[in-house]
């Protein structure tokens, strides 16, 4: 479809360009610009992007919701490979744009308060603006290569922001870990793109999906499984799925707004977006979908169990993010694509809220993150408490908060597909409710357990931090009404809206995308079960942490074996360290000692030594005796003449 007109094209271009402009201004003006100006530039560019996105969205729906491509120029043209610099504006893109810029704006606003004491304020805003640019490129690009560019861009920003406080070596190591793990995934993604080009002769979405829709090889051929699996490897890295999830909890080393923006609400959902975008390919490969569902549920379960025993407020949220991402992949695996996106959306609301709330707590506690030193904070931080409570209720799936609707819809699809996965999902849901309320009770209820100095410093955060909390709390409350289940007789706004993006998939494998077939009684039962499970978990948490006032064991105390195992995150980091990192280090050391020092250095130094030696022996010819010089000259001339005479 051709671009509508020049004005629209310019508007589309402005959406990612504005944050890029903010990045350039703030990046060049770091430490030179006043902090007020920096936050003004940082926030206003993102706000402008958000407003343009809203306009584009309204324009899109007003014009009959027809997807269109905006072509700017031919970016790469090599032989048959034609890659345009173009944007695809459709339902999915617009929704992601709204989510990224909207939540991004509130987190920028929050950062203006949260980071106000940091000397590298300008650098921080430059980086998060660059992140917005990359993320927008990722979701707006009309082909896999542009998605890859954004994909790498967000990876870079993630690295920069995790290691933002780069004077701490642990933080730098966390940043490196995130970067390397993402790189492993990216390799899969890149290979997937190559395979797509080889198979379909193009990397542009409409062409690839049109080709896929009339794919001749039939469903589940090897090449399709390979493509989808390789793409999924990329998603595994970016969206922190087993076995590449360990970087995400470590990524909490970054400033809290970064955790909220990148490692909870937006970047980590890039993997989901990619699978959703490629739905036409995935419906052709049910085997891959099975694998995705299993990986998703395994991740959800594993991360939730680890979350039960963590004592760092951000670590708990990090594991819950991993767990919720697992949920989303589970939904993708059972082909509940819209439900997955629904959960992405509601999760973005409540997880951003929870992270920002945690940031507010950390800010008030003078950078203390250990929940064992908190307690009773609801009296000191009333707004933070109220909003955090809403976020916790939402993630636990208590109606009418957003998490209930998305999680319920998701689990209903899983139930229809596979009962075992459903039970595991429900178990995860139980644990999620438990550890989230454990976190809430330990932080906000009971007596204050910190030092006196911390207690005297306790204060509610400034308005720039509480306003985003309130807005996100409102969104977490009403966000679920975008997708009210059919049982209640209302329209599923989100599902209807997203329907056109599956057009190609319907052609490719129509049977795969059938709507939910559960009768109403079953659906009510499922809802009751999931709410019941959550309520039971909350009650258990209440009894343990409020009535009995249990406080998790201090560092170094002996724990029961199972508790110890999950407290230490199943020793997965140690396992990777032993199996991969150490052998790699050993191999590198061996290569250094033998190949680098002996062979490479030997050759290079050998040339140096040879020159030196030659010079040392030849220098005796320069005796300083003029007669000798003249003699050599004469003989040389004679020799030249002779040679010229006989040879020339």
């Amino acid at each position, binding site marked *: 479809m051709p671009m509508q007109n020049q004005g629209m094209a310019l508007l589309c271009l402005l959406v990612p360009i504005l944050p890029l402009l903010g990045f350039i201004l703030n990046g060049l003006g770091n430490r030179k610009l006043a902090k007020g100006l920096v936050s003004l530039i940082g926030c206003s560019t993102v706000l402008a992007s958000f407003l343009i996105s809203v306009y584009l969205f309204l324009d899109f729906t007003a014009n009959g919701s027809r997807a269109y491509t905006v072509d700017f120029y031919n970016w790469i043209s090599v032989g048959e490979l034609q890659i345009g610099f173009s944007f695809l504006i459709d339902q999915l893109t617009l929704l992601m744009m709204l989510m990224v810029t909207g939540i991004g704006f509130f987190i920028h606003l929050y950062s203006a308060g949260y980071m106000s004491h940091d000397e590298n304020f300008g650098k921080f805003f430059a980086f998060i603006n660059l992140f917005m640019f990359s993320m927008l490129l990722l979701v707006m690009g009309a082909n896999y290569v542009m998605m890859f560019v954004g994909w790498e861009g967000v990876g870079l920003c993630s690295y920069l922001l995790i290691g933002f406080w780069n004077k701490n070596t642990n933080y730098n190591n966390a940043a490196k870990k995130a970067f390397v793990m993402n790189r492993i995934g990216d390799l899969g993604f890149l290979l997937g793109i190559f395979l797509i080009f080889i198979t379909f002769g193009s990397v542009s979405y409409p062409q690839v999906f049109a080709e896929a829709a009339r794919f001749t090889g039939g469903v589940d051929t090897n090449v399709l499984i390979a493509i989808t699996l390789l793409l999924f490897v990329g998603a595994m890295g970016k969206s922190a799925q087993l076995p590449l999830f360990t970087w995400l909890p470590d990524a909490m080393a970054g400033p809290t707004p970064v955790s909220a923006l990148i490692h909870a609400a937006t970047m980590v959902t890039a993997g989901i977006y990619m699978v959703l975008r490629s739905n036409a390919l995935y419906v052709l490969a049910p085997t891959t979908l099975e694998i995705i569902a299993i990986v998703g549920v395994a991740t959800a379960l594993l991360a939730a169990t680890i979350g039960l025993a963590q004592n760092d407020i951000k670590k708990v949220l990090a594991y819950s993010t991993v767990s919720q991402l697992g949920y989303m992949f589970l939904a993708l695996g059972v082909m509940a694509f819209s439900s997955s996106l629904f959960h992405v959306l509601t999760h973005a609301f409540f997880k951003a809220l929870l992270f920002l709330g945690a940031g507010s707590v950390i800010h008030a506690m003078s950078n203390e993150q250990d929940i064992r030193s908190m307690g009773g904070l609801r009296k000191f931080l009333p707004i933070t408490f109220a909003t955090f409570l809403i976020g916790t209720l939402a993630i636990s799936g208590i109606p009418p908060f957003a998490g209930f609707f998305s999680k319920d819809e998701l689990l209903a699809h899983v139930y229809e597909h596979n009962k075992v996965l459903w039970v595991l999902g429900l178990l995860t849901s139980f644990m999620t409710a438990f550890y989230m309320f454990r976190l809430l009770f330990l932080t906000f209820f009971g007596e204050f357990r910190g030092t006196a100095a911390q207690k005297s410093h306790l204060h509610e955060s400034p308005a720039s931090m509480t306003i985003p909390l309130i807005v996100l709390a409102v969104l977490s409350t009403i966000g679920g009404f975008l997708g009210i289940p059919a049982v209640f007789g209302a329209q599923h706004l989100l599902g209807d809206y997203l329907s056109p993006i599956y057009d190609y998939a319907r052609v490719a494998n129509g049977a795969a995308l059938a709507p939910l077939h559960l009768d109403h009684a079953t659906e009510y039962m499922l809802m009751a079960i999931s709410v019941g499970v959550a309520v039971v978990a909350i009650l258990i948490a209440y009894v343990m942490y409020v009535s009995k006032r249990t406080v998790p064991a201090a560092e170094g105390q002996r724990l029961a074996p199972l508790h110890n195992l999950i407290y230490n995150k199943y020793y997965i980091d140690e396992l990777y360290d032993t199996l991969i990192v150490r052998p790699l280090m050993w191999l590198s050391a061996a290569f250094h000692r033998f190949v680098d020092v002996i062979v490479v250095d030997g050759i290079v130094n050998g040339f140096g030594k040879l020159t030196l030696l030659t010079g040392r022996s030849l*220098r*005796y010819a*320069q*005796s*300083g*005796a*003029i*007669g000798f010089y*003249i*003699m050599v000259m*004469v003989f040389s001339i004679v020799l030249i003449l002779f040679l010229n005479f006989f040879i020339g």
Partner: protein
Amino acid sequence: MNQIPEVIRTVPLDYYLYFSAALFVIGVIGVLTRRNAIVIFMCVELMLNAVNLLLTALSAYRADASGQVFVFFIMAVAAAEVCVGLAIIVMTYRNIRSTDVQLLNYLKW
């Protein structure tokens, strides 16, 4: 000069060539073997004059004046060069109280 003068023809060209070659070689050997800077300098002059003689002789036998023009140039340049050379030798003598070139071997390695 359309014709070669009778006087010149009485001595064949070969003789001039052999003579200048001999002069040149004497010069070269002198430069190589002598240690006194002034003698070396004189030998250099000898070599220059051997070339001058050769040029004149060939000019005469080939009835071409340009060779003799060259000779004048060489003589002028040689005169200038002698000035510089002798000045160097005088300075050398003032410094080391000798004109022996073998003593001038400071410039090594």
